[in-house]
């Protein structure tokens, strides 16, 4: 018999599976390009006073592509591949894994809650400007919070097609703006000054680099979909590289174009005066007002997409940890009607509400103190996680028998670990510049210390579990698969297909 039997099972299961574009759209939506360009890059210029932001974006894209090599290779061999702490658990041991889980919870919560500052301030400014209302930033932030809370427990995220449309529109707007800014340079000449590699050794580069990393957070989410793609081996790897390359180039180009339009020597000053309006103010003389309005709406929708995406990320982490019983089992419960990780979702929303009320009462600045400070602190947490994960990839591949070449299992992860570790070191040294506070301010140590405390807490908890509850300890890192843990201890690592 020459013809082979049709594989009905594979054919049925392949229906509705994701291709490369869908995965790219999902993760770039979390990275929210217009938020990074209009919000992150401008505020980065303003707060840090560093002009090397564009080259920092490009460098970080290169480092993250290097990181992705080992990360994607390892993701194929482990269960619960969507969570950083799984990698750390399998590569560096369970105590380190729980430490990483706590850091991750703090980092993603910071990313999400910080974005409320941006969403509130930008939405309020837009509505007040357009309709002459007198809304405060926190009214708008709480309104957005209410929507995210409802969608979170209802388990609704943005539809793939909606995301695709919004994302393409965002990219078109960003590229149009870039073209306009580049064709209208400040002194009549296009300056490449902010792209000069010399910025990479200048003072304050650590602050610029972690600002850049913050802009990419979300790209690591590709592996969440690894079991739902048409071809897990190729789709996830390609989608990850495409996401890093597209966002990296777009961020670098846009941040550079802004500096061209203002002149490299005036970009910091302009960003401090105009804030998140900078990019819109720069192009508005050359475009019709309706285009600017559409762009501003897209800025708000991109913030919203990122908020929802990070909300689901936190809820997922809490759910996985609840299933493992590392956190109370109640976090592993789902809403019976919608299947949402209900408790995790509500706890995240509750935390966000408390922080928003705190900021509103304290009268702090939503853009600098909430949006920028808290999201870059989240970026710092993700940087710590990526450094640990990179080291874990090397640890994992040295302990398991595998068929990967040395490039994926040792060289690229080692290079990424060194590069990320280097960025981490300069970031911590320049954290005062990053926050825009005096070098002797206690705040510069407050944020990094929070991560150290979370990590120590996690490690201590893992050690307690090891003696008091060995079953739970054994299932650390398995996420939803923790049910199968006691039955099949040997099958924890998924063998390469």
């Amino acid at each position, binding site marked *: 018999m020459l013809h082979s039997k049709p594989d*009905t099972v594979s054919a049925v*299961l392949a229906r509705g599976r994701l291709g490369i574009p869908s995965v790219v759209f999902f993760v770039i939506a979390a990275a929210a390009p217009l938020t990074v360009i209009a919000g992150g890059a401008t505020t980065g210029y303003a707060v840090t006073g560093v002009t090397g932001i564009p080259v920092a974006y490009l460098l970080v894209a290169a480092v993250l592509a290097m990181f992705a090599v080992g990360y994607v290779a390892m993701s194929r061999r482990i269960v619960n591949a969507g969570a950083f702490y799984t990698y750390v658990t399998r590569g560096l041991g369970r105590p380190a894994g729980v430490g990483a889980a706590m850091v991750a919870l703090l980092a993603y919560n910071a990313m999400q809650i910080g974005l409320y500052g941006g969403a509130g301030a930008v939405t309020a400014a837009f509505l007040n400007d357009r309709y002459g209302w007198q809304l405060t930033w926190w009214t708008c932030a709480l309104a957005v919070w209410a929507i995210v809370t409802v969608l979170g427990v209802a388990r609704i995220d943005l539809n793939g097609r909606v995301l695709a449309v919004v994302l393409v529109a965002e990219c078109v707007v960003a590229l149009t703006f870039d073209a306009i800014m580049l064709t209208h340079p400040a002194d009549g000449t296009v300056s490449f000054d902010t792209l000069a590699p010399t910025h990479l050794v200048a003072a304050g580069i650590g602050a610029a680099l972690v600002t850049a990393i913050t802009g990419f957070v979300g790209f690591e989410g590709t592996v969440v979909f690894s079991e739902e793609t048409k071809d897990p081996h190729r789709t996830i790897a390609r989608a990850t590289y495409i996401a890093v390359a597209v966002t990296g180039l777009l961020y670098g180009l846009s941040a550079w174009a802004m500096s061209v339009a203002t002149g490299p020597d005036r970009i910091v000053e302009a960003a401090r005066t105009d804030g998140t309006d900078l990019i819109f103010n720069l192009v508005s003389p050359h475009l019709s007002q309706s285009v600017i309005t559409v762009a501003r709406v897209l800025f708000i929708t991109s913030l919203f997409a990122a908020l929802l995406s990070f909300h689901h990320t936190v809820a997922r982490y809490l759910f996985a940890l609840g299933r493992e019983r590392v956190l109370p089992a109640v976090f592993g419960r789902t809403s019976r009607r919608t299947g949402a990780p209900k408790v995790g979702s509500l706890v995240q929303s509750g935390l966000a509400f408390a922080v928003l009320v705190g900021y509103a009462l304290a009268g702090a600045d939503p853009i600098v103190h909430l949006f920028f400070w808290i999201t870059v602190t989240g970026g710092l947490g993700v940087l710590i996680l990526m450094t640990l994960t990179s080291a874990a990839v090397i640890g994992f591949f040295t302990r398991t028998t595998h068929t990967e070449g040395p490039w994926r299992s040792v060289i690229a992860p080692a290079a990424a670990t060194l590069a990320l570790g280097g960025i981490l070191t300069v970031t911590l040294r320049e954290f005062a510049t990053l926050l825009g506070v005096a070098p002797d301010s206690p705040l510069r140590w407050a944020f990094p210390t929070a991560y150290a405390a979370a990590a120590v807490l996690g490690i201590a908890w893992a050690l307690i579990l090891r003696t008091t509850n060995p079953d739970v300890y054994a299932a650390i890192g398995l996420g939803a698969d923790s049910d199968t843990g006691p039955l099949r201890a040997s099958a924890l690592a998924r063998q390469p297909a």
Partner: protein
Amino acid sequence: MNTPPSGASNDHAPHLYEHPAPIEPARPVRAVGSAAAHTTTRLADEFFYLAHDDQTGRPRLFESATAHGLAAALLAELYREGRVTFEGSHVRVINTVPPKDWLQHLVLDRLVAEPRHTATRTWLAFLATTACEQVITRMWQLGLLRPEQVGRLWRQRTVYVPTDVNTAAWSWARLSFQLRNYHPLTAFDQTLAGLALHTQLDPILLDGTPLAVRAFLRHQVDQVHPPLRDLLADLGAVVGGAVLSHRTS
């Protein structure tokens, strides 16, 4: 919905003819509700009752949990009929004699026809795509469910309502009563309780009970045959995985 179950008639693989003839002669086509009732109760039907309201037929669980629960119930039916077993994360056919029940027969034929797939999770995912519709068809044939149009104009849909509330509520009442009073369950009910536990149906089943009852449920579910424990563990992982990688399509 209304097509008579015809097994895998559209893609007969040669091996299907190799089956020994069914012990029972083929039944003539009958009117709805008059198909011969089997003496043993079927796990998937019972799980369907558990996962839906006994009066309105509305789901008590989210869709993917119900679908995967029904898929696991169908595999467990085949296990109870001695046709398949579960070894670690794999399902293995041990007896290809067709079961009397057409749906069990259909599932078994699929398993036999696709020997290249052995992972229990693959089969749970595959069967989940059709399990709900198939179990509804089987129950409708026996007169256990009747279709009803609900919802307003723009959101009309068909809900399958149990024809007899007492039958529908029986498995729920039985499990709930036995567990709340710490009575040991039968092997059948242990499996059913395991399906409920791993699809996260247990909080409503045991609503308002002390923690000891939940612990008793877990203890009872741990008594199921080792192969079924493997199946249930995979069910739990698949349902959890569906929560983690959820996306609105």
